[in-house]
């Protein structure tokens, strides 16, 4: 309020004296809508300050919400044109929200941002219909986190990069004993897992086709690990990402699947050595999907040019270094990933090799505007296949029938 008053006064004054050109340089406050836990706030603020250091006329004001709430609030704000100038976006939500963002391609062309500096899979993840809508700050594939101490105690070799599903299953079996499990399954395993095995959940028209033989088969393989072989506890329909990581940290499960974004938290919680490995492959070659998040510019923003200047700093090399070194994000900027490998992940075996292997074998992460709905249904319905109350086919056709 105060700022806009000052701004208005500045505008009037400048037009009075016929020096309207200066109005463009008047201080601008750019709002930035972001998620994060209390600790993150300091990091984000650090990035916001970077912007002001480089552009003293631009002040970035952070609006922080919790991760879940962010997605409750965003559509409501968007529906009434109240979104911030800079909007944070996760690649998997892009199909729902790209309409509230401005395409960045023209801005990028005019600036010295080089698309090739970023990991390609996440650049396409933040694009829609061939247009880029956000610049990424982090990226990561889903991968297997494992308890190295348990592997050693069981006399197991550490996983090879191209290990197969059968290797994974044998390993999980060897680690399941004395009331602890070899593997702790979560909802997203039933998406990333089958893809790595070579299955497709979409048809050629980019629509859900969950009951195709290939997907049912790959899905069943993962479901059977829990339902038939009892190698994993059942996850609950309302469990959040912490269910498996919590059990992993307490030593109750030896392996679980998650992204590099959780590594820093995982490390802080455990008192054993963590290793990471790619997802197991099927009979074909390895292939992985990646996700990540970035920042775009609201289509309703009044300060688009200032916002893009700020955006360049927020996704610039220095910011990537800060986030990488703090372990908050595996930078989407390839050159800065090393800060993450050598900083946050230095005590974790094989992060650099594994991730570089995985980035070399990515497959496009296919999504559409029903993706969010699909993920919620997976969370809600898959447990029924894990307890054996229903067959994998039954569950998949239940989910499919609700994605009209």
């Amino acid at each position: 309020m105060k700022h806009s008053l000052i701004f208005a006064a500045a505008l009037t004054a400048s037009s009075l004296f016929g020096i309207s050109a200066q109005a463009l340089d008047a201080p601008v406050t750019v709002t930035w809508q972001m998620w994060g836990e209390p600790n993150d706030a300091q990091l984000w603020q650090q990035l916001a300050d970077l912007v002001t250091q480089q552009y003293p006329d631009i002040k970035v004001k952070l609006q922080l919400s919790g991760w879940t709430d962010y997605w409750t609030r965003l559509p409501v704000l968007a529906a009434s044109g109240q979104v911030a100038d800079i909007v944070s976006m996760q690649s998997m939500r892009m199909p729902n929200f790209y309409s509230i963002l401005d395409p960045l391609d023209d801005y990028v062309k005019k600036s010295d941002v080089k698309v090739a500096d970023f990991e390609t899979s996440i650049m396409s993840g933040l694009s829609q219909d061939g247009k880029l809508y956000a610049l990424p700050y982090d990226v990561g594939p889903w991968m297997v986190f494992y308890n190295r101490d348990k592997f050693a105690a069981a006399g197991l070799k550490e996983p090879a990069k191209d290990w197969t599903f059968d290797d994974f299953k044998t390993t999980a079996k060897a680690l399941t004993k004395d009331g602890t499990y070899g593997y702790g399954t979560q909802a997203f395993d039933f998406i990333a897992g089958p893809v790595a095995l070579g299955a497709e959940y979409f048809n050629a028209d980019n629509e859900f086709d969950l009951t195709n033989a290939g997907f049912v088969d790959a899905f069943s393989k993962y479901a059977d690990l829990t339902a038939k072989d009892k190698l994993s506890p059942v996850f609950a329909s309302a469990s959040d990402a912490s269910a498996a990581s919590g059990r992993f940290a307490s030593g109750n499960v030896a392996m679980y699947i998650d992204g590099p974004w959780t590594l820093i938290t995982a490390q802080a919680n455990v008192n054993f050595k963590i290793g990471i490995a790619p997802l197991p492959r099927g009979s074909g070659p390895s292939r992985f999907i990646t996700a990540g998040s970035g920042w775009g510019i609201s289509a309703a923003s009044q300060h688009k040019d200032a916002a893009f200047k700020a955006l360049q700093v927020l996704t610039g090399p220095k910011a990537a270094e800060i986030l990488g070194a703090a372990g908050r994000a595996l930078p989407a900027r390839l050159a800065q990933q090393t800060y993450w490998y050598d900083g946050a992940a230095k005590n974790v075996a094989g992060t650099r090799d594994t991730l570089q292997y995985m980035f070399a074998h990515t497959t496009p992460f296919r999504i559409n505007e029903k993706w969010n709905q699909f993920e919620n249904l997976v969370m809600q319905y898959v447990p029924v296949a894990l307890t054996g109350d229903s067959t994998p086919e039954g569950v998949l056709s239940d989910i499919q029938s609700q994605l009209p």
Partner: protein
Amino acid sequence: MTLKSKARARRKLALDILNHAALLLVALAFLFPFFWMISNAVRSNAEVMAIPVRLLPEVFEWGNFAAAWTRLPFGRFFLNSAIIAICVTAITVVVSCLSGYAFARLKFRGREMLLLGYIGTLMVPPLMLIIPLFLIVNRLGLVNTFPGVILPVAFGTFGAFLMRQFFLSIPMELEEAARIDGAWRLRILVSIIVPLSMPAIGLLSLFTFMGQWSNFLWPLIVMTGADNATLPVGLTLFQTQQGTQWNYLMAGAALSMLPGIFLAIILQKLIYNSIALNAGMGGR
């Protein structure tokens, strides 16, 4: 005879003690979830998820309370919640007394229909009104302001109905005497009716206050600024993209419950009296 009656008295006393003890056990069992909340608040996050579960933590981490308090601007959240809850309560009480009085004492055309309309709105699922409400608040330019979060929830119809029911139970004669003196309606309400209605006002205030203290979805959507979050909204900051910090979440939840527990204990007599009134009015 005295022997017999003594024996009977003793038996009765034993039964009484047994009766109290049995209910005491039930009450303790009933309190268990509170214990469980505290017990999880003072252990490490890994231990919350540990199997097998221990009733008491291996290591008591009492620092979690302080940590939860300092990792978030908890004091600020407390203040925000208090401001909102108190303002909503004040507006609700004033408006409900005025409306309730009109329904109870004033004769006007369409009174019964209007009252029925008021009661009918109680059955509208509030979840559904959130989006249109937000659009209105936005049109009024009140997003991320205290009036924006307070006003839309301060005009419930339940209060008017509750106060009407109570006012009906106050003898008309008291008021008519004052009328003859030429006292004005509003003065009657303020100086005669309201002082007699304290139990009902107390009940309304308590429930409005507690309802707002724990309100979640509405403040979440309206208060976009990080510093403007209320307690329940602030608590969810512990549920992150990387997982949930159960111990801090529990510690924060326990802290946020304190005012409620405090009020419940301090005001237990008022609560009982007010609800007793409600019980008496229930059928009317």
